[in-house]
């Protein structure tokens, strides 16, 4: 029991997490590439043309995973932030900081691809529908988080202030999800739900799920790479960073 605890907390230290992250990154990149190739193949060549939406619907293979990731990453970010506040671990704040840009990218991507989907389907790049609007607000929340962290020079204070903001903002994520039910508007209802069977063809669903996995792996790989950079930056004064071969190689 106690052994397991020690093993987990061992990787809460930036010093032991740094090499672990370095070992994991290539695997996640490889998985991301495999899922991306399979997912794109299914979405372009296997999945049938939609009866009502034509070929244009294929945007959803990028749009839906990006939208999922943008919401999910915000929860993960808030989770790390909460852990950082509660346990006062340094790595948690770094993880939250590393997740934010990827989350913002996903939110932007979901808005952008949503506009591409909206033009042929609704005849408008943008409609003030509840889900679109709340996705836009999620994007603003990411930007606010990044801006707040960037404005505070002291890294520890930036982590904690950002953590509070993330936890306050996480209230918004369920509102995004349930807004579909709250305001009945133009946006089609969620077609994948746990409660009832999906209303889309099985191959479409598989394409989307595999693309979601690809996005997932990509996000993990990028976040781990970024957190390694943050660790190096923040721990630059420590002995173990100075002893790293890549750091010594640079200064030579």
């Amino acid at each position, binding site marked *: 029991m106690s052994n397991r605890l020690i093993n987990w907390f061992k990787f809460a230290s930036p010093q032991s997490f740094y090499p672990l992250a370095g070992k994991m990154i290539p695997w996640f990149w490889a998985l991301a590439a495999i899922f991306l190739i399979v997912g794109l193949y299914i979405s372009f060549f296997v999945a049938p043309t939609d009866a009502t939406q034509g070929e244009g619907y294929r945007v959803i293979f990028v749009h839906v995973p990006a939208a999922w990731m943008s919401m999910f990453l915000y929860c993960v970010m808030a989770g790390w932030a909460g852990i950082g*506040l509660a346990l006062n671990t340094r790595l948690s704040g770094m993880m939250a900081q590393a997740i934010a840009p990827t989350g913002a990218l996903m939110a932007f991507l979901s808005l952008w691809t949503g506009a591409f989907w909206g033009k042929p389907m609704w005849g408008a790049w943008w409609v003030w529908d509840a889900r679109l609007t709340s996705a836009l607000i999620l994007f*603003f929340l990411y930007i606010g988080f990044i*801006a*707040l962290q960037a*404005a505070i020079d002291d890294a520890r204070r930036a982590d904690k*202030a950002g953590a*509070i*903001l993330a*936890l306050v903002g996480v209230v*918004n994520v369920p509102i995004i999800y349930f807004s579909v039910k709250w305001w009945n508007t133009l946006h089609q209802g969620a077609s994948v739900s746990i409660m009832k069977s999906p209303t889309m063809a099985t191959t479409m669903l598989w394409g989307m799920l595999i693309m979601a996995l690809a996005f997932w792996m990509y996000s993990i790989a990028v976040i781990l790479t970024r957190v390694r950079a943050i660790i190096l930056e923040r721990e630059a004064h420590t002995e173990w960073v100075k002893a790293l071969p890549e750091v010594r190689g640079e200064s030579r």
Partner: protein
Amino acid sequence: MKAVIAIIRRDLLLAMRRKSEVLTALFFFIIVTSLFPLGIGPEPALLKKIAPGILWVAALLATMLGLSRLFAPDHADGTLEQMALSPTPLGLLIAGKITAHWLTTGLPLVLLAPVLGIQFDLDTEALGILVLALLLGTPLLSLIGAIGAALTLGVRGGGVLLSLLVLPLYVPTLIFGAGAVEMVVSGLSAAGHLSLLAALLAVAVFFAPWATTAALRIALE
């Protein structure tokens, strides 16, 4: 409780000594709402339709104006640290400060809104709901804004950053607040929107002073 009342009295007294700050926010509210008809045109039907949104957005922005001054002077002269050290829980004192902020910026807006609503040709029923919605909504704005004010305390470019942090969080308030008035204007019941607004307020009253206190403690470290 005594300490809370003392804090409210002190902040109100300070606000009365510097009337210009309170009045600036109030006149900002009046001017912004008066600019919209000039930009859009004097058509009564159109103005009536957009009035709830305009009044609410203007109220949002007017509340924002005073937020950066909510904790900054106390932080600068060390009062805030004394509050943190006092035997009364900091959360209570902060709740008192937020109440005072609402009394000086929110309440005047609530009282002034029906007068401005007349400019937009709103009928008596809509005006009543507007006042009710603002009465529920403006404390919410002060509560949420206080979190942002505490987070940006002593931070570079605090004022602009504050609006970036707080305005997205104001969106539900805006939607339900303006929605309530719109419902009445289009002849429906505003009860649902008002209930949601009251629910948000109940949640915020409980959590916002707590989050603000946590943020202030980080700033004071």
